[in-house]
């Protein structure tokens, strides 16, 4: 069971080489296409039901019922929402910078999908096990800001522009403690490769060794995702919907999709770095992966519907005057700790 997908992939490859007589290059190409298709369908299916989950959970936390009309317990609500969004008219504001406006909704989705290349979905189930996997994740996710700024600028709307500016300010500032919190784990592992990080947590999860780093990672990650209490770029009361104010129909849905795809990717990274990755007893590793990722997503949602939004100057002060020094101190303590540990061992 543990190697179900790995064996299925290997079997398919074997069949294509020997059964169909295809050359190895074409087989590799087909396998890559299949992997991409699998990851895309995983992301899209999860997003579909994450929206439902978030609406339902927020409703329960607020003593409401949530969607319960379409299908049993409202399970078909989001599916029909997607159909509605697809059938909507594609509205581009007259004063908008048309090309930038249209491109932004596509570009926002590209890094969101590219992140999944280095996510370990299970044992031996990484699409590309790069030797700098974590760094790749950081580099790709840093480009998300451009899409938000393009959307804010291209809409030619003051709310959108302020939303885009805020997104940049927030995501660029919180990237620093985010990266520094990951450094603690990298120092313990001595490798940027995702599979090495997972293997290093065989005995003890890094959340035990690096609790402060995990907290910083979680807070900065929430800010990177623009989720409440750090959802200032789209604060409804002040900015209508921030950078996405002028978007509707499928273009808006792409932003929504990217937001949730990023949420899954961020949770998966948290699981890989701090919660032992896909490893676990009894059940196959890919089931453990999904269970752990959903626990992380649940906590992210819990945060969102529990805390009120904070003010923009508090947001910046909190980052530069608290999170950044704390993450630097964490690196120092980790370094000293590793040295002392080595000293006692030898």
């Amino acid at each position, binding site marked *: 069971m543990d190697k179900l997908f790995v064996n299925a992939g290997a079997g398919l490859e074997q069949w294509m080489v020997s059964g169909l007589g295809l050359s190895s290059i074409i087989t590799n190409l087909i396998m890559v296409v299949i992997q991409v298709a699998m990851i895309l369908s995983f992301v899209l299916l999860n997003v579909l039901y994450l929206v439902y989950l978030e609406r339902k959970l927020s409703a329960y936390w607020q003593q409401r019922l949530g969607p319960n009309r379409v299908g049993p317990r409202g399970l078909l609500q989001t599916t029909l929402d997607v159909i509605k969004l697809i059938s909507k008219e594609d509205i581009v504001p007259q004063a908008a*910078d048309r090309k930038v406006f249209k491109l932004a909704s596509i570009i926002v989705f590209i890094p969101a999908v590219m992140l999944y290349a280095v996510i370990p979905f299970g044992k031996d189930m990484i699409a590309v096990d*790069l*030797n*700098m996997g974590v*760094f790749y994740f950081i*580099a790709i996710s840093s480009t998300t800001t*451009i899409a938000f700024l393009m959307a804010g600028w291209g809409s030619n709307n003051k709310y959108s522009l302020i939303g885009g500016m805020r997104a*940049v300010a927030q995501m660029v500032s919180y990237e620093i403690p985010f990266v520094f919190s990951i450094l603690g784990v990298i120092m313990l592992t001595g490798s940027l490769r995702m599979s090495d990080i997972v293997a290093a947590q065989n005995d003890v999860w890094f959340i035990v060794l690096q609790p402060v780093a995990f907290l910083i990672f979680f807070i900065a990650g929430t800010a990177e995702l623009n989720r409440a209490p750090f959802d200032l770029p789209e604060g409804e009361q002040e900015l209508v919907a921030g950078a996405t104010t002028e978007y509707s129909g499928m273009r808006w849905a792409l932003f929504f999709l990217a937001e949730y795809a990023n949420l899954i990717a961020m949770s998966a990274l948290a699981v890989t770095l701090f919660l032992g990755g896909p490893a676990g007893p009894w059940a196959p590793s890919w089931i453990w992966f999904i269970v752990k990722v959903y626990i992380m997503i649940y906590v992210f949602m819990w945060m969102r519907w529990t805390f009120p939004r904070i003010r923009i100057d508090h947001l910046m002060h909190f980052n530069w005057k608290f999170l950044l020094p704390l993450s630097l101190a964490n690196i120092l303590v980790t370094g000293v700790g590793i040295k002392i540990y080595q000293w006692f061992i030898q």
Partner: protein
Amino acid sequence: MTSTIIFWLIAIIIMGSALMVVLLRNIVHSALFLVVTFVGVSGLYVMLQADFLAAVQLLVYAGAIAILLVFGVMLTVRGDIKYSNLFNRHKFTAGVVSLGLFLLIERIILSSDLLISNKPALESTVGPIADALLTDYVIPFEAAAILLLVAMVGAILLARGEGKPQ
């Protein structure tokens, strides 16, 4: 064969977008084409199997474009952003300087022996870079860090304005 085709595709993308950066009159569009240029260059690094450098290129350059854009928009004093990246009359001088620079770089590239290497690509590029930065090149590395710090303090002082209260 395939790598040659990919190289030329990337080269065309880099050159085309770099030209657009200079030729477009809207500074926001110019900055966005600069992103394309940087992503293209990072693609070249991937082709050279310098994957760490490629990721740094994305993180530092392409990521920082967002900040560049913000400042470009904030500091543009013109009423219409469509004419924010204008030409001037020094076309002839600019042409001579560019040609001179091009010839100089071309001479340096053609006279260097870095063109072809028979060494196999490094398995991991991260470790060697870290080793070099923290042993042989630690003094230049620290000097660059201090220089950046000084620049940052200077920028903050300039932005605050001297003598003014906070």
